[in-house]
């Protein structure tokens, strides 16, 4: 039916812009029939955009998509797209309240007539057997575990007749043995002639299941190569590129005799991380690096009391706050910048001054009253210290830009002059100048004698750290002192080099 010489999938010269940001800039990918092709790149490289273009959910501004040499279907022709490409998304599209069988044949349970449930279950069993998925078709999908749900998605995706399937970070939520089983399955599908595009942040996985790899960086195509011909370090440097001039970290001497202000001992949270020891001294900044599933955010959130650890202890400033109680950690002298500023960082309708002084409201007046003038004065000082661009302390934080809102969150964390500071992804989605102010504020705090833990996906942020702990699958695998190169750190983070 199709010309065997043309690649299974080809995206040529794709450009896609969202407002001022360019998500893909003249990028492309060519995937040969029957191969498993990896697409790698750091966050923001344009991988997700390419996925939505290859699945027909978004239209490129320029460029074209070909399946087996023929142009892709029209955007509205969902069935046409489905018969060409299937995708297992990061976010589950399984409906938990329906049975496995119904999820498999959602919206195509029957034609116009009544549904024959017995026949539907039989069809589902056939489909599950065909792909070797051992799940009862009559079970509620919500009772399945993550791995089973994913298998269900793969089987459903393939049931539309597509011979090309995109797996968007399928291993991110799976544990070791489940990843092994997924790889077995991918190899079996490949033996059946299925073409796959595999997205992962773990480079070792790329070497294990893929034949070719394409690297995207900053919305551009960087290289495509056979996996066997590309050494690890070349792949890592293709992903990171030349280190761009970023924030200049200050020189700082840490005092090895300074007291430990933030510590963790044998801390374990099932499914996130296990047996982590950590001690941060006054005046020291310790970075936590690792991929999304490494457990670094879970660890940091346990330190501030957002999670109750299964075992182990947290010490803040010499005391032991009640596990799982944020306010007790804050009382002990901890400042906290949460990961998602919109969800946990600020109250958008309240003013800058009010947001920034929430943790110290009790110090701004007597008998539970809050003095507006004291609050205003404090707010003004913070605006000045962090160079927040605003009309004044009374402006609601919801009206500020991302970078300035994040500065308010930082101001709040620093309001009570904390002895210990936990900062998670402080520079996510902020511009360069805000980034400098935010990192500067963390360094200022350290100079005043606070000990800080900085969690970030941005390598540049971690430059201000005196040492970086790299986590991989829930464990600290390496401690890297100041002066590391991007390639070193990425290699450890991606699990290529865990020496």
């Amino acid at each position: 039916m199709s010309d065997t010489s043309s690649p299974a999938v080809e995206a040529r010269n794709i450009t896609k812009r969202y407002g001022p940001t360019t998500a893909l800039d003249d990028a492309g990918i060519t995937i040969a029939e029957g191969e498993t092709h990896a697409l790698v790149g750091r966050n923001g490289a344009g991988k997700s955009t390419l996925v939505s273009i290859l699945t027909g959910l978004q239209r490129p501004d320029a460029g074209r998509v070909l399946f087996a040499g023929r142009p892709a279907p029209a955007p509205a022709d969902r069935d046409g797209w489905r018969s060409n490409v299937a995708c297992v998304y990061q976010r589950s599209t399984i409906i938990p309240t329906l049975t496995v069988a119904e999820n498999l044949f959602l919206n195509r349970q029957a034609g116009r007539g009544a549904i024959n449930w017995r026949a539907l279950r039989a069809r589902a069993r056939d489909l599950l057997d065909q792909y070797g998925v051992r799940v009862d078709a009559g079970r509620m999908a919500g009772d399945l575990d993550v791995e089973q749900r994913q298998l269900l998605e793969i089987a459903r995706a393939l049931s539309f007749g597509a011979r090309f399937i995109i797996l968007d970070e399928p291993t991110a939520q799976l544990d070791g043995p489940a990843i092994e089983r997924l790889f077995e399955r991918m190899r079996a599908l490949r033996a059946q002639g299925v073409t796959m595009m595999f997205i992962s942040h773990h480079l070792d996985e790329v070497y294990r299941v893929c034949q070719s790899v394409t690297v995207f960086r900053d919305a551009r195509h960087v290289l495509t190569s056979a996996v066997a011909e590309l050494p690890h370090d070349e792949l890592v440097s293709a992903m990171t590129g030349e280190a761009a001039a970023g924030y200049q970290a200050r020189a700082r001497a840490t005092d090895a005799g300074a007291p430990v202000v933030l510590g963790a001992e044998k801390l374990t949270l099932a499914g996130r991380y296990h047996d982590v020891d950590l001690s941060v001294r006054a005046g020291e900044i310790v970075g936590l690096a690792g991929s999304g599933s490494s457990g670094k955010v879970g660890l940091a959130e346990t330190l501030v009391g957002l999670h109750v650890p299964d075992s182990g202890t947290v010490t803040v400033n010499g005391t032991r706050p009640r596990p799982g109680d944020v306010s007790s950690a804050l009382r002990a002298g901890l400042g906290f910048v949460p990961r998602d500023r919109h969800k946990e960082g600020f109250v958008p309708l309240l003013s800058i001054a009010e947001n920034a002084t929430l943790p110290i409201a009790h110090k701004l007046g007597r008998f539970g009253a809050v003095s507006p003038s004291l609050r205003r004065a404090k707010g003004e000082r913070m605006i000045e210290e962090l160079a927040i661009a605003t009309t004044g302390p009374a402006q609601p934080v919801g009206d500020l830009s991302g970078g300035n809102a994040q500065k308010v969150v930082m101001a709040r964390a620093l309001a009570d002059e904390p002895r210990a500071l936990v900062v998670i992804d402080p520079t996510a989605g902020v511009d360069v100048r805000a980034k400098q102010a935010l990192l500067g504020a963390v360094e200022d705090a350290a100079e005043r004698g606070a000990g800080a833990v900085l969690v970030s996906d941005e390598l540049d942020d971690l430059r201000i750290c005196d040492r970086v702990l790299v986590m991989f699958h829930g464990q600290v695998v390496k401690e890297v002192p100041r002066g590391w190169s991007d390639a070193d750190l990425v290699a450890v983070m991606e699990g290529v080099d865990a020496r």
Partner: protein
Amino acid sequence: MTQTTVTSPGSPGSPGSPKGRTSGGGAVRLARFRDLALVPAIVLLVIVGALIEPAFLSGDNLTNVLQQQTELSLLVLAEALILIAGKFDLSLESTVGLAPALAVGLLIPVSAGGLGFEWPAALGIPLCLLIGAAVGAFNGLLILRFKLSAFIVTLGMLIVLRGLQIGLTGGQNLFALPESFLYLGNARWLGLPASIWICAVAYAVGIVTLGYFRHGRSIYAIGGNVDAARAAGVRTDRVLWTVFVIGGLLAALAGLLMTGRLGSVAAGQGDGMIFTVFAAAVIGGVVLDGGKGTLFGALCGVLVLGLINNILTLAGVSAQWIQAIYGGIILIALMLARLTSGKAQE
């Protein structure tokens, strides 16, 4: 970074183990059983009723219990559909009053409290249903097109519709109604009140549609995960809109039956019913979060509440106390439902 890892690692039947299949079969049977969870309660209530008052088991009393619940059961049918689709409608109880009041107002002369149009009486029933459907369509417009919260929209509509009825009728009950308008509410077909037949048919159609037809199943899909339903090609807005229109239609039908049974349109017709509607739906296993519950369960919820009400009356509980006891029983029933289902209710 997603947080889907919360699924307990100890969930039964890891893939590859033959156990998965057997435990799965058990889950299916259990799910079926949950549908019937209220049947023992209904049987128990019937026995209690018979012990307290022998007259309880008489055909007349049972028919009476059923007929009194027909209006409520139509509203619960409407609400259950909307809740399963993951939405909310509080305005149903006001439609119960406004739809018949406005329809009647267009038929009867000004002297009887009408609006002066004096349209032919034959239009009464179609008009009433049309008004209900229009209310549902308007709710759908605000919720789906303008993306407003269903709770607030229908709360506003609850007040507006009640106010419209009072404004149009001057707060008066309407008595001089055309015979044809009263027919459905007090006719008897094959020895049973017509309203019971109408309810039975409505539930039968609903149960079959939601159980065995693609469009009915799509309501569950939308309530369970609207994005996934859309990704599977379900026209989610169109289905939701239809559900709101059907909801309004059923509420108007309930109003029509109530009008026929009582022989007039009271100014406060349907007032306060929405609380019982929600109680019956939730007792019957419909989840306020959407995606879960069956119409059969909701019907059982109505029957449980109806029987409790009847037994309290027959047992001679003083009228001043019935409301407090009734409310208490609803709370106990909810707690029992929570304990048996083992999952938190939102």
